């Protein structure tokens, strides 16, 4: 695993405009950064990332089975009791999932460690599945990269195939897609998934989350008053379950992507459960619920809210002393602690691997780096190669 500087393509910004990649620069900071790339060996990809990713996902599915059959765990995961049936049924029916991203600490040598599972609303999909793929093709064509260069990235191919399967599973030819207003990044991610669904032969309709309506017959509606029967949402389950339309979810009977059972995996309570079920697993970090452990009195721990996004409300706990690392609105549902395992540093950058799954198949990685030790939401995205 190496970080190698490389000349950016001269016309990449022009191409970004042409392809509709509008969030390569966000909040005045570069987000897409092709002034360097990461290089992995095939063995590193296959043995250290791909295989553990598949295995971690299976462990997570076992965890779902555990939670769903145990009220204590459902409480621990802060799932409102009125929604237990919704989640239970979606799991019993094996409602198909589309994708997940496991965030891994990996330095090229030691076993990758699971930091968290973005199982519900993972982003950086477009830049992973398409944009870094295009970068590789073009840099190889220009002889900037060796001809044998490859990339761990079958995302787009697998997403299209998955949409074919989901279309058959639900016997549908149309799906709605939704995300919040006023976020170009989310809209871009959803548009990419619409492109993949269309390539799979599905017709797609877009509606903003805030515009979704509730019809007189109990189904959700779009702005044309058409029923929303099958819908991809880039909007977290933990919000949907608690908002006013949450009470209509069960009756509405919408087929959601991700399905409701994914609410259990995007939850940080998963981390202590996995550690309890698979103690000392080489790809797990020790983790506990903050309110029922004294482990944090020795060693270095990261304290995270059970619900949080984008690295908000995180503290470092060192020998019992807590230092706040980031502010935020989360934490009312409680916290977990996870053993501190620093991100590897390459040229002063702290590097995080996002490992993608489409359904249960490992499908590629994204590499993000940050100036700060705990990856925050202003990190940069760098492409990678296998060579």
């Amino acid at each position, binding site marked *: 695993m190496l970080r190698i500087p490389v000349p950016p393509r001269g016309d990449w910004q022009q191409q970004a405009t042409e392809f509709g990649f509008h969030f390569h620069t966000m909040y005045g900071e570069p987000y897409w950064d092709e002034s360097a790339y990461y290089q992995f060996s095939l063995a590193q990809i296959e043995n250290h990332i791909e295989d553990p990713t598949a295995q971690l996902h299976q462990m997570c599915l076992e965890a779902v089975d555990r939670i769903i059959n145990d009220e204590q765990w459902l409480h621990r995961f802060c799932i409102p009791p009125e929604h237990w049936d919704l989640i239970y049924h979606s799991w019993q029916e094996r409602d198909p999932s589309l994708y997940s991203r496991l965030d891994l600490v990996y330095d090229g040598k030691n076993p990758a460690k699971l930091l968290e599972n973005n199982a519900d609303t993972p982003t950086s999909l477009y830049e992973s599945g398409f944009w870094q793929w295009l970068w590789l093709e073009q840099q190889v064509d220009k002889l900037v990269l060796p001809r044998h260069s490859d990339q761990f990235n079958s995302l787009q191919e697998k997403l299209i195939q998955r949409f074919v399967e989901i279309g058959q599973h639900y016997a549908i030819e149309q799906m709605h897609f939704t995300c919040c207003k006023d976020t170009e990044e989310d809209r871009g991610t959803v548009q990419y998934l619409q492109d993949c669904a269309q390539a799979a032969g599905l017709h797609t309709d877009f509606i903003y989350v805030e515009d979704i309506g509730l019809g007189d017959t*109990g189904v959700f509606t779009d702005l044309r008053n058409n029923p929303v029967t099958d819908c991809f949402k880039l909007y977290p389950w933990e919000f949907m379950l608690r908002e006013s339309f949450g009470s209509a979810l069960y009756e509405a009977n919408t087929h959601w992507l991700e399905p409701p059972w994914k609410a259990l995996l995007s939850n940080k309570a998963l981390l202590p459960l996995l550690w309890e079920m698979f103690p000392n697993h080489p790809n797990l970090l020790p983790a506990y619920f903050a309110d029922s452990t004294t482990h944090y009195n020795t060693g270095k721990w990261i304290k995270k809210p059970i619900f949080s996004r984008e690295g908000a409300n995180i503290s470092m706990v060192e020998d019992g002393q807590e230092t706040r690392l980031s502010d935020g609105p989360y934490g009312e549902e409680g916290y977990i602690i996870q053993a501190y395992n620093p991100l590897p540093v390459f040229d002063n950058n702290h590097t995080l691997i996002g490992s993608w799954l489409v359904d249960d198949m490992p499908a590629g990685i994204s590499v993000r780096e940050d100036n700060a030790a705990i990856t925050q939401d202003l990190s940069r995205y760098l492409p990678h190669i296998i060579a």
Partner: protein
Amino acid sequence: MTRKRSKTIDLRKMRKAFALKPLAVGVAAIMASGCADDRQDAKIYTSVEDCKTDFPDAVEKCEAAYETALQESARTSPRFNSEHDCEYEFGPNQCQQVSNNGHSFFMPFMAGYMVSRLLTPGPIYSQPIYTSYSPYSSFRSRWVTADGQVFNGDIRNRKYKVSPSVYKPKPTVTRTVSRGGFGSSVRAKSSWGSSSRSGSWGG
């Protein structure tokens, strides 16, 4: 050696027609290219009179379809922040300024409306259709829907087979009783820290 990356990606399909980011529209692929068996005949009219000529016994329906399309256009047309951006996509003098809830934006004039099921019982299918006179636009001389679906062929082609938006029996909805029941957490949670990205709810 097996490749670890996608074999091919159709770059033509990845290019986005709306290069200039309209405010409220996503771009879909070519609508009429699907091969569903239940596609139905649809025709584009550029005036109510054209429709009445075709359906002298259904002039009220022609008018109703036109009104529906106009209302749809006001609600769902592509929207742009500036007249320049709108004219870049749709051509000179093809855009109007509209104000809504204190927001001002520009949208293209409706160029026509697409109608099907005019003579069959049940709801008439009618929607606004646009075209572009801009040399910079991939919509130039082609028909396009409000959500960016481009029809095959140029604007001389008025007859299409389209897939109905409802493919299988779906729950009926006669009206929407409320909106806005999702999305409130965003406003609640995004009010903190301005230094951080507050928009995205992806992880």
